[in-house]
């Protein structure tokens, strides 16, 4: 009952906000949050398309499940890295971790 386009625009908003967050956040955890936002935007698109255009409505949802699983895995590994990093360098701000800088 709500047209597909509206869902897509909603997802666009989330996606773009996610990109913005991933670019401007200094804190790695903040970046992770932004990345999760991007993945969620993708999920919204998957489900909206599967509901509106796909002959098999299960496909989109299944892929949303996979995305959720991968997002969970990503969050786990990301946060483990954050903890390890914090233990070694006492900071998790990206612009203070620049060993590879010129």
């Amino acid at each position, binding site marked *: 009952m*709500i047209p597909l*386009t509206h869902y897509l625009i909603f997802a666009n908003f989330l996606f773009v906000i996610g990109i913005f967050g991933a670019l401007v956040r*200094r804190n790695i955890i903040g970046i992770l949050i932004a990345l999760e936002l991007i993945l969620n935007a993708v999920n919204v698109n998957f489900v909206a398309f599967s509901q509106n255009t796909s002959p098999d409505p*299960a496909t989109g*949802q299944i892929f949303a499940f996979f995305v959720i699983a991968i997002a969970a895995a990503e*969050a786990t590994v990301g946060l483990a890295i954050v903890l390890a990093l914090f233990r070694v360098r006492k900071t998790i701000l990206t612009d203070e971790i620049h060993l590879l800088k010129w």
Partner: protein
Amino acid sequence: MTHLYDIVKFGIYALMAFSVLAAILAVTVRNLFHAALCFAAVLIGIAGVFLSLHADFLAMVQILIYVGAVMTLVIFAIMLTERFGDNSSPQNNSLTLAAFGLAIVSLIAFSTISVKTRWPIQENAGALHLSVGELAYALLNTYVLPFEVISVLLITTLIGAVIIAKKDRVS
């Protein structure tokens, strides 16, 4: 019943607006803990959007996994790495302006694409109800290979995360 539909429709749009607002807060708020809470609000809003798309099971999984598990992890990490209420250092870096420009440009671009493309809409769009059983069938038959790959990925992640995060016994 048209009025009821209107009310529900209005509710969904309100939910979307709420989610977008919370998302904006989540990437701009200075206090990281608040940002995480705002993100949780976004997730719940998205779960509501899934409900409006008749993806009940997915909505519940979204809440269970994202809010129940991923957010818990994120907040744990915040607690372990942040000093309480330390808002002295800025949360945003020097890229803010460029990122904002990029965001606006891509928003316009994507929205144009979304609006201008003629999507092949199915006739029964918006009224497809999927039972949990059908989902399970699709997951364990058509998509069994990705499913297995995901399970391998998860177990690898589990082990990897433990190994990365544990303290070095040697040193």
